[in-house]
């Protein structure tokens, strides 16, 4: 009997541990797999496969609109998606048009394009890809792109007139694109693209979102309003494995998995402590 009480006391003590110990444990379990990778397997989910298949099945030379709506704060989740999607698009010789609904999205897009378009594929600006840049206004910008993109983007991010950019020939509105991929971290982002662009025009779209957004976006995927979704860092890692080029998301997945296990353990311990505490307070 005393033994049970001793064990209960240990659980109660664990339940009242200072939160700073938990922060330290989480920091340690995240850092160790980053320094010593375990190499846990990554299996692509159906939603990630759908995104891959949709882009893979586009005819060569398709016009793809890539909208970058995230900032450095969600770079670990969104940036690997943007880089992998750009690799996939350039590998299949599609034309990529980049817009940004977030101000910070412009330099995130610049960073991804200089790494992939210039550094890996030697693509030509204005012929293979163009960075139209950021415009403030949220859903009003999406509506503007749907009705008349040239009215909104008379110049690109480099202040070059769009009339002077060869790949902008014949691009008047959203219907001139074959596919939309939105790399999104919140508002304005994926949901606005579904509501004001993809649904009214029927142009297929897909998205890469932060983990927090997944539950919000998933109903659009289930109902067929969106073609798949890349869900957070695991989604990015799955896409990296699908295109066969590993990147920062893959290397972060070991730490992610171990941290999740530890958090689950904390939740279990916290609950045991809570129920013991409740049982004792009822008793007395």
């Amino acid at each position: 009997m005393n033994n049970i009480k001793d064990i209960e006391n240990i659980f109660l003590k664990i339940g009242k541990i200072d939160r700073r110990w938990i922060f330290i444990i989480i920091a340690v379990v995240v850092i160790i797999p980053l320094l010593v990778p375990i190499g846990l397997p990554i299996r692509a989910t159906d939603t990630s496969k759908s995104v891959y298949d949709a882009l893979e099945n586009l005819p060569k030379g398709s016009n793809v609109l890539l909208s970058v709506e995230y900032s450095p704060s969600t770079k670990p989740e969104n940036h690997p998606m943007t880089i992998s999607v750009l690799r996939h698009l350039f590998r299949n010789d599609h034309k990529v048009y980049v817009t940004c609904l977030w101000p910070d999205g412009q330099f995130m897009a610049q960073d991804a394009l200089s790494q992939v378009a210039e550094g890996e594929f030697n693509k030509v600006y204005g012929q293979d890809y163009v960075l139209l840049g950021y415009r403030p206004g949220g859903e009003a910008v999406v509506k503007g792109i749907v009705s008349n993109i040239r009215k909104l983007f008379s110049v690109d991010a480099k202040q070059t007139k769009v009339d002077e950019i060869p790949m902008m020939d014949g691009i008047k509105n959203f219907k001139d694109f074959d596919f939309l991929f939105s790399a999104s971290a919140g508002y304005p982002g994926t949901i606005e693209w579904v509501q004001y662009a993809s649904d009214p025009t029927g142009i297929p779209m897909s998205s890469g979102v932060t983990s927090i957004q997944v539950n919000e976006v998933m109903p659009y995927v289930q109902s067929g309003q969106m073609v798949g979704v890349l869900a957070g860092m695991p989604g990015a890692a799955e896409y990296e494995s699908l295109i066969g080029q590993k990147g920062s998301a893959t290397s972060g997945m070991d730490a992610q998995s171990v941290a999740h296990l530890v958090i689950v353990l904390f939740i279990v311990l916290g609950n045991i402590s809570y129920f013991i505490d409740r049982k004792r307070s009822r008793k007395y």
Partner: protein
Amino acid sequence: MEFSSILGAWVASFLTIGIFSYLYKDNPFYKIAEHLFVGVSAGYLLSLGFWTQLQPNLFGRLFPAKHYDPDTLTYSIYNILSFFSTSIFPEGGIDKGHDQHLIYVIPLILGIMMLMSLIPSFSWMARWGIAYVVGMAAGLKAYGYLNSNVIGQIKGTAVNIFDFSLPIFSLSSPSVFNNLLIFIGTICGLLYFYFSKEHKGMLGKASKIGIYFLMISFGASFGFAVMGRISLLIGRFTDLILFSGSDYHYATYWVLVLIVGILGYAAFKEQKNEGFPEPNILSSSNEEE
């Protein structure tokens, strides 16, 4: 390695560890990082908004280079403005590929009226601009929600539960079991929000099933939220590990030692002044809240 990259690494290390130091307790390093973040974000947003929208799309339509004629009233005003800033109003008009649309004077006036909220006696003018923005946003939202969230989602949940051509069970693709789950979850979830009748009998049972569906949804949201936060932590740690290398002159280690050292010394002085309270951080977490 370029000096700017090394400096950037040191600044990034300082700001990251400064923000993390809040996990110990509120302190000046955290405050510096927080205030810098807010200030830089606001400045960057303002500057980018001005140079990507106001200057090319508003002023560019009011004073386009295409129609430049110094004898007209519009361009006389423009030349006066140009006297103050040639970078915003370059000589000979703004060449951003637009035709002249004087109707854009209306948004310009509404924008100026919104700024009037800074002057208390004219603050009533701001309501006009705000009213326009609110009205436009409400109109846009109403259409978007009705089309995608109401009609689109009703279509998505209107599944055929008797479609036996589908497999009986599948984890993620359409199946009889999944269709049944969508049907029951949607109906019971909606019934939980039906408040015109007391939740008793069949309605009570159905709404209770609805609660379970909602709880599973909230659980999934919590799980995704945890995953998101861990991803961001991984991102920061990846950068800190990178900046701890010799290429960056061990920026992470030096900054960590500096911040921990100063906070430790401050804590030591504080304890000395308060007569050495309980040093064991295994004590109750509530005292730090």
